[in-house]
């Protein structure tokens, strides 16, 4: 069987999406968790509109980051446990490409739903429409970066039995720039200023993660599969 690189990417992507569709709980859990965390803040702090509005960018971004961290654990684990990864390691193709396809599939089923429900939650925080647009855009650029960074951590811990907290502890600090930029972009838009600067920086981080994270995760997965 001879596949082009693009075809290989597409095959892995389709396969991972299909596997995910068979297990709905894996798709639902991060979104439900995201909604839950976001709803905690008004309950614990105060439901006043202007207070929530000031809080919204930070809260939504922190919740998105936590949801991303929570979902990472499953990125490679099943494939390592049932031996699929062993087969993928023997492919005569760059492993980074396989990793990239898997990470994209993972983002589509865990990250994209979070981005999709974020505007709805932003309304409950009384965020004005243009700030919601910037929030949506920043999440759309930022959460793939979170998944890519997370793929390195997930690859490193895929062979370990217990990895939840460890994974968060390792990858969390690496994700902080994305959190700062994303939340601040929304905050700036909320204040009525031009948020293009941080959005460009978020884009730059995505480009960097897109080019560096898959090869690093490929090295890591080879170590884990040993």
């Amino acid at each position: 069987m001879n596949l082009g690189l693009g075809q290989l990417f597409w095959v892995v992507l389709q396969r991972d999406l299909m596997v995910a569709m068979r297990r709905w709980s894996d798709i639902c859990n991060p979104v439900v968790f995201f909604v839950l965390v976001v709803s905690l803040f008004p309950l614990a702090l105060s439901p006043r509109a202007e207070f929530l509005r000031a809080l919204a960018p930070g809260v939504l971004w922190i919740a998105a980051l936590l949801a991303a961290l929570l979902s990472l654990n499953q990125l490679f684990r099943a494939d390592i446990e049932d031996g699929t990864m062993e087969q993928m390691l023997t492919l005569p193709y760059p492993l980074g490409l396989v990793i990239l396809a898997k990470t994209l599939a993972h983002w589509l089923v865990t990250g994209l739903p979070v981005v999709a429900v974020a505007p709805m939650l932003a309304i409950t925080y009384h965020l004005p429409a243009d700030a919601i647009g910037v929030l949506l855009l920043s999440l759309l650029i930022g959460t793939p970066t979170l998944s890519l960074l997370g793929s390195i951590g997930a690859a490193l811990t895929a062979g370990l039995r217990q990895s939840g907290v460890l994974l968060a502890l390792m990858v969390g600090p690496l994700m902080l720039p994305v959190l700062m930029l994303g939340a601040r972009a929304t905050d700036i838009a909320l204040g009525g200023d031009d948020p293009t600067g941080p959005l460009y920086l978020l884009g730059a981080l995505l480009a960097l993660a897109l080019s560096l994270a898959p090869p690093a995760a490929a090295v890591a997965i080879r170590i884990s599969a040993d």
Partner: protein
Amino acid sequence: MWTWFFQLASPPHFYRMAGSLVPWLLWPALLLILIGSWGGLVLAPADYQQGEGYRIIYVHVPSSYLSMMVYVTMAVAAGIGLIWRIKLAHAVAASCAPVGATFTAAALITGMLWGKPMWGTYWQWEPRLTSELILLFLYFGYMSLRSAFNDLNQSDRASAVLALAGVVNVPIIHFSVVWWAGLHQGPSISKIDAPSIAFEMLWPLLVMILGFTLFFLGVLAMRVRGEVLEREFHARWAQDVLRGANRVEAAG
């Protein structure tokens, strides 16, 4: 030159060499730190703005400098270990982490103590302190990943990947923290603007930095010796060394 390099990478040779190097690093370190402390605490004049309070700089700056230096050293050693599969380099990286974390903690604590008289509060979300805090998290992540594996070889290589990912991220984290802090600077932080620091204040600082660096190298050499001994526990030379040590202990 290459034979020298390969000899260095052989554990027994390194063990012996590092052992003889330790006193040559630690005694000068002690001497320099004493001279620097004397210069900084006694000879240097009080600052016209900050009075005597600024003198904590003589511990704070060397610690924060080393906290970053050690991380880079760790990442370089980890990279060498990963690429050329040199076990000794992994041992060096493993030994760096706790020392670096300690320097980071020291930089944070002295920074907070300095903040109290200068800013009126122990903690200010100021770029340098904040990136130092994130650096501490990076060290913790590295160390907990190391301890999560049972297999030493796997632990070495996995943590090396993390160290390299971290070192790529350190400048990104630093600049985004600076950018983030620039957006909402707290009310009238008395910034320490020192365009030209007086020579009487500067030389003790440089001596302290040199002393701290030598101290780090000495401690590192000691730690790597221990690490190598533990890793090569079953090797003949390690058994010989351990028997020798036991004899000395028994005699003493």
